[in-house]
C-alpha cells in the first residue's frame, strides 16, 4: 500500500501532489528563479494599481460635482507665469531618465563592469529620490491649497481621495525601490555579485541577475507613472 512508485512512473493522488511540487519541474525555463518571481510579483502589483485606477475612473464617472481641472490645480507659478503641470512634467522626465540609467546599469552589470554598474545604480537611486522629493513638495502645496481626502475647494470631493491614494501608493513604491537600488549598488561595489556572497537577510548567493531583477521593479514603477500621468493628470 505504502510502497513507493516504481521508477519512471508518476505517483497519483496526494503522494503525486507532493512529488510534483517537490520535483524540479518548472514553468519558467531559462530564467533565474528570482526574475520569474519578480515578474509574478509585478503582475500582482499591476492588479493593485489597476484597481486603484479603475476605482478612480468609476468615482470620476459617477461624481455629480464637476471634476477639478488637473492642469490648473497642478499649475506652478514660474517667474510670474502660471505653467500648467510644470512640476508633474519635470517629475515625469526625472523618472524616465532614471529608467534609462537603470536599463544601462543592467547592461553593464552583465558585462561585469562593476564601476559603471555602481555609478548608474546610484544615479538611478538619486533620480528616484529627486522624484520623491518633488512629490513631497506637490503634496505640501496641495494640502496648503485645502485639498483633503474628503473634499477640496476645486470641485468633486473624490478628487483628493483618488489623488492621495494613487500618488501616495506610487510614491511608496518609488521609496522602496530606492532602498533596494542602494542595497544592490552596495553589493555591486563590494563585489558580492562576483564572489556569489550570500545575502545578509535571505542567504541567497549574489549574482548579476539581481541587478536585472531590481531593474524590473524599477521599470515597473516608471510604467505605473506613465498610466498615472495619462489618466490622472492629463485626462
Amino acid at each position, binding site marked *: 500500500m505504502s510502497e513507493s512508485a516504481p521508477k519512471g512512473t508518476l505517483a497519483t493522488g496526494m503522494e503525486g501532489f507532493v512529488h510534483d511540487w517537490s520535483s524540479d519541474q518548472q*514553468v*519558467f*525555463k*531559462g*530564467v*533565474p528563479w528570482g526574475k*520569474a518571481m519578480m*515578474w*509574478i510579483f*509585478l*503582475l500582482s502589483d*499591476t*492588479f493593485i494599481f*489597476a484597481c486603484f485606477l*479603475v*476605482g478612480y*475612473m*468609476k*468615482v*470620476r*464617472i*459617477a*461624481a*455629480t460635482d464637476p471634476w477639478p481641472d488637473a*492642469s490648473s490645480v497642478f499649475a506652478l507659478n514660474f517667474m510670474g507665469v502660471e505653467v*500648467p*503641470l510644470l512640476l508633474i*512634467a519635470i517629475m*515625469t*522626465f526625472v523618472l*524616465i531618465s532614471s*529608467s*534609462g540609467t*537603470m*536599463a*544601462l546599469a*543592467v*547592461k553593464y*552589470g*552583465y*558585462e561585469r563592469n562593476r564601476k559603471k554598474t555602481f555609478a548608474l545604480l546610484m544615479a538611478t537611486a538619486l533620480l528616484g529620490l529627486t522624484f520623491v522629493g518633488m512629490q513631497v513638495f506637490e503634496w505640501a502645496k496641495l494640502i496648503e491649497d485645502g485639498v483633503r481626502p474628503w473634499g477640496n475647494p476645486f470641485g468633486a470631493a473624490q478628487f483628493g481621495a483618488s489623488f492621495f491614494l494613487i500618488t501616495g501608493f506610487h510614491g511608496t513604491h518609488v521609496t522602496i525601490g530606492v532602498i533596494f537600488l542602494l542595497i544592490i549598488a552596495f553589493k555591486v561595489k563590494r563585489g558580492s555579485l562576483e564572489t556569489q556572497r550570500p545575502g545578509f537577510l535571505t542567504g541567497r548567493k549574489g*549574482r*548579476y*541577475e539581481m541587478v*536585472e531583477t531590481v*531593474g*524590473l521593479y524599477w*521599470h*515597473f514603477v*516608471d*510604467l505605473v507613472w*506613465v*498610466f498615472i*500621468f*495619462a*489618466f490622472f*493628470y*492629463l*485626462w
Partner: protein
Amino acid sequence: MSDVQGQQHPLSTYFWVWGGLFVLSVLSYLVDISPFEGLLKWSLITLFMLLKAALIVAIFMHMIWERMSIALTILVPTGVLLFLMLLMAIEGDYISASRLAFFSQ
C-alpha cells in the same frame, strides 16, 4: 553558473528607446496645453501612453527577448483588466444616472 551571460543588447537600442520615451512624454504634454478637446485629446493621450508602456515593457524590461511562457503569463491577465474597466465604466454610468435622477435639486 558563470556561463550565464544574461541579456546582451547594443547600447544604441537603449538610447533609442530612452529618446523615444522623452519624445512621447513631450508630445503628451503638448497635447495637454494644446487647444485639442474631447475625443481627439483623449485618443492622443491614450496612444502616447500605450506606446510608452510598450517601449518600457518590451525593451527596458526585456519582454520581447523572454520566452513566450513568461510573456503570456504576464500580459494575458493584464489584458483581462480591460474587462474590469469596461464593467466599472458601465457601473459608474449607472450610478451617475441614478444620482442625477434621484438626488439632483
